[in-house]
Structures are given as C-alpha cells and as structure tokens.
C-alpha cells in the first residue's frame, strides 16, 4: 500500500474498511505481515505517517475492530511500535478499549508473554493511557485474588494472569503505587490466601511469586514478604518479567535473562580466583632430596590394626531399641538405634510380632531429636518393616489412628504412605527371601513428600493397557523369579476398608470433607493404589464396589487434586477387578460412571482430570470389546 505524500487530503476510510474485512475473514497474518513492518518503518520518524496510521485504525468499523486490534497487537515487535501504530485508539474507541483491557487479558489466555508485554507496555507509554493501566491492574488483581477463580480456572489461565500482573507492576511509577497502595495490599492478602490453599504446587508457587513481587513494590521500608519455593526456569522467567526493560532493548525478556546469567556467572569466577590467591598455597618439600639418615628408622611401629573408627553400638534386641527410643537421653545411642531399627525388625520377625503395635505407636510419634540425614526416610522404612512383618494388627492400629483426634497432617499422611509402601512390598513376589523390583517394567511408587503420585499412576495404567504380557526377566542371564503366594491378598481388606469407613464423619480437629481436603486428596490416591495392588486377591470385587460408591459420593468435589485421585481410583478399579465380576456385579454403577466420565471429559477445567477421564473411557471400551470377543 503506497501513498503519495504531500499536502493532499486523502480519505483513508476505504482502506480501513478493506483492512477490517480482510482481518475478520481470518487473513490477518497475510495482510498484516506486510503492512505492519512497512508502517513501522514509515512511522519511525514521520509524524504524518503516524497520523495516517492512526486514522487508518480508527476508521475500522466496530464490528471488525477486534480482529484488527488483535492482529496489530500480535504483530507489533515492541510496545513503542504498537504505540506509534495505534496511537490513543484505546482511549478513543470503546470497542478497542474493551478488546485490549478486558478480552485479551481476562477472557483469553493463549497469547505469549511477548504479546502481554507489548500490550501493557503500550498502555504505559502515554499519560492518557496510564489510567487504563491502573484500572487493568486492579481488575487483574481482583481476578487473581478471587477464590472461585483459583479453584475453577485452568492453571494456564492463572499463569497468564500472574504474568500480566507482574508486567503491570514493572511499569508502575512510584506516584501511582502510592495512590493505590491500599488496594494492592488488600488484593494481595486475599489472593495469596486462596493460592496457598490450593493443592497443586504450581498454583501455590504462582501465588507466592506474585505476592512477593507485590509486597516488594509496595513496602518500601521494613521487612518484605519472602517465600520459599522451588526456583526453576519457570519461576525465574516470571521474576524476570518484573524487570522493566527500556523500549530500546529487545522485546522478549529471555535473551536479556541469558545475558544477565552470563554476567552473573563471570562474577563468581572472578571472586573465586581472587580468593585462591589469598590463602597460602601449601609448599610440598621435595621428598627425594631428604637423603639424611632418618633416626626415625630406629623406632619400630607397633601393631595398629585395631585402630578403627569409633562407632556407638546400636542395640541388638528390639526391646532394647524400644527402650532407647522412648526413654534414653543418650543422643548417640538414639541416632544409632534409628539407623539400625529397620534391619533389626526385618531380621527378627518373631520378636517384632510380640511388640508390634507398641513399636508402630512409637514410630508414628517419633520426632527428630538430632539432625540425622534422611531421618524421614529411616522412620518410614522402619514403619513399613513393622507393618509388613505383622500386617493385620498393625494395619488395624494405623487405620484407627488415621481417624483419631489430635494427629498432625504430617502424621496422617505418613500413615497413608506407610500403608501403601507396605502393600506394595507385600504384593511383590519375594525372590530368594529378598524383595526386589522385577525388571524395568515395574514402576516404583515413591511416596516421599513432594511427589505427584498421579503421574506414576498414569504411567502404571498406560503400561497395563499397552503391555499384553508382564515380562519379569530381561536378557538371557536373568533367573526367572520364583513365584510365591501373594501376601497382600489376605490383608488387603484390613488396609482398605477401615480407611474408607469414616471419611464423612468429621472430628473436631480433622474434617476430611471440609478444610482438610489435602488429606482427602492423599487418601483418595492411596485408595487408588491399594485397589491397584489388590489385583488377583479375593477381596477385590468387594473393594471395587465400595470404592465405586466412595467415588460416586465425592465426584463433584471442587478440588482438582481430589478429582484426579477419584479418576485414578476408577482406573485402578477397572484394571484390577476381573472383567466378568465387573459386568455381573457392577453393571448399573458402571453405566452411571460412564456418563459421569463423559461429562468430565467435556466440562472439567483441569487438563489432568480430562485426560484421566478419557483414559477411563478407553478402558471401558476395551472391556466391552474384550467381552464381546469372548464366545459366550
């Protein structure tokens, strides 16, 4: 599109119409890819061209305005370019304002960080538009802080809004922050509460980063809010958005980040080399030159083979261990006992059985007295050892304690983890008296804090669906595993049913259906794993029925972690309960579940839930096909 400059009065409205129509029909990319760079160059220094450009976009009819504005925002390489191209369009045109401030920020969330930066930078560059910037920030903060948004909107949208907030913050000036300090503070406090309440670590981290940034901006003196979270690439990217890059720099923050990182890396190297030159370098005398007769040769050394490391001895009997753990003040002995306990329990099953419940009780309440490495793991392994040595009474004790008063959340989740690990151990075939993982195909279920058992779940279920045979031996030299009775089958019921019994009965300090939805989520995942491990056991059908009822009661729970757990329960039930039993005993429930799953696939906001529901529907399809092929 080429215009003849000069003092001519041209009407551009025709061009605007064409532009608008083309954009609305979906050809934004083609036309704007040529138009925008050309206009960028032309408007660089020429005021007249700027005016022309502004008239161009202003004359686009309202019904096509959105497409045009969107195209420009996406195409413009930098915020100042966008400013030159659009001018004060957002202030003059209501539709444009709606698109820029509401639609692009709050209703859509698929745009890249660069687009966000362009948009918000554009708003900040002109004094007329800055008022809009503040309004936008307030609305974003309101959305960020609303608890229903945190619970129901997808994590991607929440991340988008968080990024927008951070970029807005980076553009705000002191005076503006002063004027809206109070609102920022209240918004942040409400928002951080909802975010920390969530079960998904990603949401929690977003909340922490945004809250830290806001507090850093508004609190100029005194201590600033500081959280502890995993500082990986995502967190660093978010934090880099806070640094306002001046318009002359390259747009996307990532190359800047690289440059900053390289500069940071160069500094520590310089510091280290300085430090090295200060400490005295050891001077090694030339050993060979020491030729004088060594009078030390006259001194004959004595036998020093007894000189070994001094170790505090751990007790050798289980009852001694109990004594040390409950009463002893000697911390060295306590440490040695904690380290030795698991192996002692495994070596002396008869002695352990005599004191099983007592030992379980002590371990459940064991607090870290001194700083031992891996204390949590040691305690957990000892608990698992006790549980596997004498499953029935210890399981009874643990499941009853799960629903008792005055336990901390950590202890309750500990109980769940221990039950799962013990169940896993009991259900594996023991080869030559040792428990080994058979082959690479069997995935390990790691339940130490901070793990996402739902991910392992999907892997397990996928493998189950895909593999026709379970190969135990890999390679020719492997010995085939000896088969042994499944020890879990006789005790599966004791693990499973008590956990499912009282979930709807609230206690004063523990309300699964209310505030403690984190524990509920863990409980649901635990039940799913127990169900999976109960394959080929006698109680599996009864377990399946009870589990399905449980899932049915909770299927509309608001927490997405709980919903993921419920869907895993359904998967493991479909996989573990034999097909014939499923069809005979559970037909109506299965049909109802199928319609519920269809609903979840379409309407659930959480991506993981939808995937799991789809998987379950696939499993059900496979089931139907399998039964159809069996000649009846």
């Amino acid at each position, binding site marked *: 599109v080429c215009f003849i400059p000069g003092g001519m009065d041209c009407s551009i409205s025709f061009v605007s119409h064409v532009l608008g129509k083309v954009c609305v029909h979906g050809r934004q990319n083609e036309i704007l890819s040529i138009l925008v760079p050309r206009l960028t160059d032309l408007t660089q220094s020429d005021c007249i061209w700027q005016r022309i450009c502004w008239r161009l976009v202003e004359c686009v009819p309202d019904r096509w305005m959105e497409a045009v504005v969107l195209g420009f925002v996406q195409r413009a390489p930098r915020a100042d370019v966008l400013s030159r191209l659009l001018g004060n369009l957002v202030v003059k045109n209501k539709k444009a304002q709606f698109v820029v401030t509401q639609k692009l920020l709050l209703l859509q969330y698929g745009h890249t960080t660069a687009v966000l930066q362009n948009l918000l930078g554009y708003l900040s560059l002109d004094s007329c538009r800055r008022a809009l910037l503040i309004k936008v920030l307030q609305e974003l903060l309101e959305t960020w802080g609303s608890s229903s948004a945190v619970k129901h909107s997808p994590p991607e949208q929440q991340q988008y809004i968080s990024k927008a907030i951070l970029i807005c913050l980076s553009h705000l000036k002191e005076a503006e922050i002063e004027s809206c300090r109070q609102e920022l503070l209240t918004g942040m406090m409400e928002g951080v509460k909802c975010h920390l309440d969530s079960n998904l670590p990603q949401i929690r981290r977003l909340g922490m980063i945004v809250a830290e940034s806001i507090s850093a901006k508004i609190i100029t003196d005194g201590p600033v809010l500081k959280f502890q979270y995993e500082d990986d690439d995502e967190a660093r990217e978010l934090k880099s958005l806070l640094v306002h890059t001046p318009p002359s720099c390259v747009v996307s923050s990532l190359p800047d980040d690289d440059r900053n990182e390289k500069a940071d890396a160069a500094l520590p190297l310089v510091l280290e080399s300085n430090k090295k030159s200060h400490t005295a370098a050891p001077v090694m005398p030339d050993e060979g030159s020491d030729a004088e007769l060594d009078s030390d040769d006259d*001194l004959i050394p004595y036998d*020093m083979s007894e000189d070994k490391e001094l170790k505090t001895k751990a007790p050798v009997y289980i009852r001694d261990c109990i004594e040390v753990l409950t009463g002893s003040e000697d911390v060295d002995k306590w440490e040695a006992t904690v380290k030795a306990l698991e192996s002692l329990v495994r070596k002396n099953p008869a002695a352990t059985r005599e004191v099983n419940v007592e030992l379980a009780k002590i371990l459940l309440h064991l607090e870290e007295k001194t700083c031992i490495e891996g204390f949590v793991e040691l305690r957990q392994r000892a608990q698992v050892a006790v549980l596997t040595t004498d499953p029935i009474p210890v399981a009874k004790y643990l499941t009853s304690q799960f629903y008792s008063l005055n336990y901390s959340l950590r202890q309750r989740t500990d109980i769940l983890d221990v039950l799962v690990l013990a169940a896993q151990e009991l259900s594996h075939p023991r080869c030559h008296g040792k428990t080994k993982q058979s082959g690479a195909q069997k995935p390990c279920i790691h339940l130490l804090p901070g793990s996402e058992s739902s991910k392992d779940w999907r892997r397990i279920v996928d493998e189950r669906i895909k593999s026709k045979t379970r190969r135990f031996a890999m390679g020719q030299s492997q010995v085939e595993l000896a088969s042994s009775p499944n020890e879990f089958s006789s005790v599966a019921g004791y693990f499973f049913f008590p956990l499912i019994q009282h979930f709807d009965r609230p206690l004063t300090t523990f309300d699964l259906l209310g505030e403690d939805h984190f524990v509920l989520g863990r409980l649901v995942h635990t039940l799913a794993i127990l169900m999976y491990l109960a394959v080929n056991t006698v109680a599996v059908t009864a377990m399946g029925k009870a589990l399905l009822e449980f899932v049915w009661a909770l299927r509309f729970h608001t927490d997405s972690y709980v919903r993921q757990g419920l869907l895993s329960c359904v998967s493991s039930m479909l996989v573990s309960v034999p097909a014939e039993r499923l069809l005979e005993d559970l037909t109506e429930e299965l049909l109802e579940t199928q319609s519920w799953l269809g609903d979840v696939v379409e309407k659930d906001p959480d991506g993981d839930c939808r995937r799991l529901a789809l998987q379950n529907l696939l499993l059900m399809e496979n089931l139907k096909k399998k039964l159809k092929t069996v000649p009846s």
Partner: protein
Amino acid sequence: MALPPPDPQFVLRGTSAAVHTLHFSCGGQEPDVPVLFSGSENGFIHVWNLRTHRVDTALDGHGRKSVYCVETVGGKDRLLSQGRDQRICLWDLAEGRTSVMDSVFTENVGFCRCSLLKVAQGRWLMAMAAKALEEVQVLELPSKTSVCTLKPEVGAKLGMPMCLKLWQLNSASQPLLLAGYEDGSVVLWNLSMGKALSQLVCHQEPVMSLDFDSEKTKGISGSSEKVLSIWSLNEQQNLQVYKTHQLVNAGISDITIRPDKKILATGGWDHRIRIFGWKKLKPLAVLDYHTATVHCVSFSDHKNPGERLLAAGSKDHRISIWSIYTQT
C-alpha cells in the same frame, strides 16, 4: 610381625573427676621424688608421687572450679595453676607448704591454657587469653607487669585464642608467640612490636592444641576435625603448611612433642593416644586404654632417658602412665 601395643606401666586412680592437665617434674636430684602434677575438673590439683603411685598432696585453690593448666615455674617448688574461676595462682610448695603466693585475675572465661617461657634467671613471660575476646596478653612474672597485648586487626575474625606457645630460638633472641585461634588459623606474633608476623589457616575447625619445635622451626596443630597439620617457619618468619596427616577419628584435644624431639603424642576424642615419629610423622603406635576422651598428654623430663614416661589424663578419671620408645 608388629608387636601389639604395650599396656600402661601403671595407672593412677583417685582424682574422682575428669583430668584436664598434667605436668611432670622429675628432673631433680636424689633424694627428690619424681612427681606428677594433675589438675582436675573438681578444682583440685593432685601431686602424685611417682614412686609410691599415690597422691602426696591435694591443692585446693580454685574454688572447686575446673583446673585446666598446671606448670612448674623453675623447679617443683613453684607451681602455676590456671582455673575456670578466672584466676592463675602461683603456689609455694617448698618444704611441705601448700599456699598460694600470688594470683592473677585474668577475667577470661575461656579454656585457653597459658604458656610459660623462661627468659632470664628469675624472670618468666606468661601468655594468656585476655578479657577481650580475641586478645592475648603477655605478662612478666613474678612482677606481673604487662609486656604487651596482642590484638588481631579489626575484621580478622579469628575468634578466641584456643592454645598458646611462647618460644625463642635461643636465649639471646626475641621471644615469639604462636597462637591457635577459633577459626582454624595459627598466628605468629612478635612480642616487642605487638604485631602479627604471619598467619596460616591450617584447619577448618578451631585449633584445639599446638606444639612447636624451635630447633627445626616446625610445629604441629590438631583440631576437632580429622586432620593433623604440620607447618614450618621459613627464613622470612612466614608460616607454611608442610604436611597434613589424616586420622581415623575426628578430634584431638592435646599434642605434645617429647623434649628430645624424636616422637610426639596426641590425645584424642576417640579415647586413644597416638604416637608419631616427629621427623616424618610416621605413625608408631595407638594406645587404647581409656574409656572416655583423653584430655591431656605429657612427657616427663627425666634426666635418664630410660626412665622417661608418657602420661595421659582422661575424662574417665584415670591417668595412664606409659613407658614407650625409651631406648633411643
């Protein structure tokens, strides 16, 4: 085939408290009895008769607060003792007396043992930790006048002085002080100028004990970690690390070099006494008798080499006396 390590020649019992310090005085002529002075945690200083193996006298001068240093000041009639009651006492033990002649109030609540050096007939220098945290004060005895106060420079962050050693190359040269500090460094101080001549970081943990051989200008230090560090002084009065030796168990509480500079003994937190050859730090023996931390080791000053003894005092209230490598 190496011989098993020897047993103690005899064991002194009767202190009824952990033994923190030992000092022999066996150089006297007949009919002087060789004695061993020991300071315990209950505040008593026991004078052991090495012929009868019994306590001859018990001195109570530190208000039942732990005594952590005893040294003779020119013969066994004068004894210097340092206790946790912040006092250094000078005892007169001649002709059966047991009285405190003089005392210095140090105002220091640490555990740093003082160090004595004879500079002239009747004159001694004593280095001790001073009231301020990082300072070392040197007094002249018996006049108790302050010779100098050694302050590390601001920002040096050495911590408390942990162990001291006054020495001079020969009777004509300047006395120098080696001090081991809490941050693991050993500093060489010039007393006349009150300045540090050299500083060497030899350990990551506090220096627990050090000893120095002024003939070879080589010293050794032990700390709470598993490393013994041997360092030397070159012509420019600079300290350099000469060698390090790894131990089996961490923690050394005392190191002492035998007066003939042939062997040295270390007392460890692992209840064991280790003997090394001084020339090349060749491990010679590990003496395992005590059942708790060995707090102090000391060599005797017998004129007859064959009678030389090694004593070790431990937290288990025993003092073990060993006769080892006496033939050389």
